[in-house]
């Protein structure tokens, strides 16, 4: 693994999200792993850390909020970006309270998530330098 490369995990139970995001983010120089099952993603989180996690809120099996909580517990430095098709202010606020970096409503443009990821990345770098 290249140390300078920012690593991103994508978790969404609809396969199209990972399928579309992964190549686009890789093209921009990120190291990306995509998951459709929260179980598999959790297992992977046990094995290694990611700089940034992008997760859906409403999924079969495990709630995205729960996943967010678990990730932040294990890796407080990991920035979590929440994406969901059921955008309401309440869920947005809740995910912020649980430590989410930002919140994006589906459908979103590739450019929008790239911008949010860029900000999360900048925050991590600032944090490290501080």
């Amino acid at each position: 693994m290249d140390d300078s490369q920012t690593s991103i995990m994508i978790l969404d139970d609809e396969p199209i999200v990972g399928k579309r995001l992964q190549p686009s983010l890789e093209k921009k120089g990120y190291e990306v792993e995509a998951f459709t099952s929260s179980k598999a993603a959790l297992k992977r989180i046990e094995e290694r850390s990611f700089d940034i996690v992008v997760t859906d809120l409403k999924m079969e099996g495990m709630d995205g909020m729960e996943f967010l909580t678990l990730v932040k517990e294990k890796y407080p430095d990991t920035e979590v970006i929440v994406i969901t098709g059921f955008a309401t202010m309440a869920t947005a606020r809740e995910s912020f309270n649980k430590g989410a970096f930002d919140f994006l409503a589906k459908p979103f443009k590739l450019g929008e998530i790239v911008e949010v990821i860029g900000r999360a990345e900048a925050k991590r770098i600032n944090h490290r330098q501080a």
Partner: protein
Amino acid sequence: MSVLDWIRRLFGSKKKEIIPFKILFAEFKKSLELNNQILDLIADANDKLSGDYIFDQRYIQYTCRKLADLVRQLIVTINHLTDQKYAALYYSFHGIEEDIETLLRGKILGQVKDYILPYAGISRALTDSVGGKNAHLAEIGNLLDHRIPDGFAITTEGFNLFLDENNIREKILAIGKSRHRNEIPVDEASRRIQHAVMEAEVPHKLRLEILTAAKKLCRRHKETKTTPCFAVRSSALGEDEISSFAGQYLSRLNIPINDISQAYKEVLASLYSPEAMEYRLLMDFRPHEIMMAVACQLMIPAKVSGVLYTYDPVRPQNETMIVNSAWGLGEPIVAGEVPTDHFVLDRRSPHEIREELIVHKTTTMVLRGCGGTGIDGVQEDLCLQSSLTAKQLRELAEIGMQLEKYFKRPQDIEFAIDRQDRVIVLQSRQLRLQQKRMPRACDLSDLKEKYPVLIGGRGISAMEGIAIGPAWVFSEDRNLNDFPMGGILVACHATPQLARVIHEAAGFVTDVGSTTGHLATVAREFRVPALFKTENATEVIADGEEITLDTECLTVYKGAIQELQYYAIQEEPIEEMYEYRLLRRVLKKIEPLNLIDPTAENFTPEGCRTYHDLTRFVHEKAVETIIDLNFYHAHHRDTQAGKLLWDFPLDLILIDVGGGIDGSHSQGVRPEQVTSVPMRAILDGMSYPGIWNMAPAGVDFSSFMSSLTRTTSVRSTSPEDVGRNLAVVSAEYTNINFRLGYHFTVIDAFVSDNILDNHIYFRFSGGVTETVRRSRRTRLLAKILSHYDFLCEVYGDVVVARLKKTNRERMMKRLFLLGLLVGFTRQLDVEMVSEETIDIFFNKIRIIMEQKYG
């Protein structure tokens, strides 16, 4: 009593009450509002196909349900306005809604009800009915004008009939499910399903239609001395898009006319081969997507057959094409059973032969009369002779490049050379390149440092993708007919007229443009990468220079960046993802507009086949209702009606519904009293000095106007005669219905400071001369309107143009233009004696517009 009558009676009991005009007009405005919301939502959904968005199935469901809700409200509104006159719209609506819900559940609806479709009537829009192989081949013949075998498709509707009449659908689904749950091995599942298919009968109706279509083909090709035989080939859904399916399904060759039905069954059965079943599981095919259309083609007695790859799949960076060929029919060549001559050609014109390997060819597959094939020895002097001439190779290479540019992907093409030495395309599908040699996406992050960037990070992507080609910078003095195949069109505005080169263009780049415009929609339909709103593309890109367009990164590079090209051709095309397939399918029930001409027979509630049709129908009827109500119910006290008094003797009645006319108008309305913003601009155009002088000599304005203004009193004449010269106006709104001579014009316009509310709708029809001149006039109007950014549809004699979401100043300019056209076009079809007149009149209008607006 029918349900319809019952509904009418239920709602019709309050009929006698006169509803104040302002309330009706508010209701009318609500219908316009809903109309716009619906059209916007449709455009947004189409925008999602650009590949620039991440969306999921939930989004598709949400959009469909939201649209259904709005359309339902719209139907309620028109029925309020018209006293339940259009209750039948609910039936059409429910039918469409039900179809969409069916699609959302994962089922596929054929786009046609026909069991048979001749190639001449097939385009890729019918892919879900005829399968990719048929659709591609038909387009190659119909649109690109290459030789293909004549034939017809047996549609998925035919397939469904076969399953349903034989009652085997549930059985097949059940066996499939057992296989998914791993209860039975795939071989067993395959064997059982294939047995069921082969035991079944081709339904009588279908058998008859196949026979009729085949006989018709035979009659069309009387030149063949012997009775023609047929090739019966698979054209399953999804088969052509994914080349790994290649060879998994059956083709039956040289079939006599009476055996086609049996061959049809065998081809259907091959849909359930163990390999195909496993592969579909892997590709996330839903059970309802598993359908087989079939191609039935006249058999080509091939002298030579072969396969052309437009890239070397193992070494794409060599920039070569590969051809393998041998004598006789293609089957053993495609199956790799016989040695073939091997040619490596340059991808670049003139496609020089880089390598040539002529093998010893000893056997050849030939037709045996009608009904079979056999293997013969090759004539001795031909064994070592090249099966293709240099000329044929060059022709093949050119066809290959053209097909690649047209389908936007490397192609794997099967071809035959017939007895007259002509190249016939038998099949063309996407060629998959070997992925391990391809650059990975993450290797591309430093391209911007390595190559000169002309545009970086500016603009919006209307269609995702990568294109390489020569830039062709469009300007007023250039003719779009000269646009080169494979060029990248660079233009100032993303105007609808540019869509004309959609089949030739590799990409579009514009300074100005929106992702919801017409050009964007067409770019997505044909998957042509498009980057709009770059601000200065026409300045920084030089005409003729080779450029690379990467819309995802909003970047244009100078030169051909091969790494990007290789990346693009190995990336999974977004259209192969289930969600894209689903969105495309539901949009087919939402977006197409079939009701174009309000005078056409199908312009009825029953004729509405999409949400767009319903929306259009309601809009038309709402406009009509408002006008009629003011003539038939002229006693409305809350509207003011008055006749326009001006120099031109035009009987125009203005109905002011609020703020459209200043002061008293009991004696008529003077032009300066008109305060309605859109109406003013139209009147300015109509009375522009000199516009009438453009009419042909000998017919001066007053004499021609008098011919249509002989009426005396508006109120005393029937609406049919004069009621059409009517304008409903308010401060920001105008709705005009003009009947000038034989021409019928409708303008509906709303102009305010809120760009989103602004719209112009223009419809023009009628004329007195023969078709050719009328068609010239129609083309002239379309040319002028497209030039001034209208979204223009031409349907026979009718021109419909729309403009939305444009700022006040630009709207005014265009309303002025419509004013010019209204006055001017009356005589046009008389004047349009030659093709050149189109350009002459076009330029005259442009000069006036320039004089007025600079």
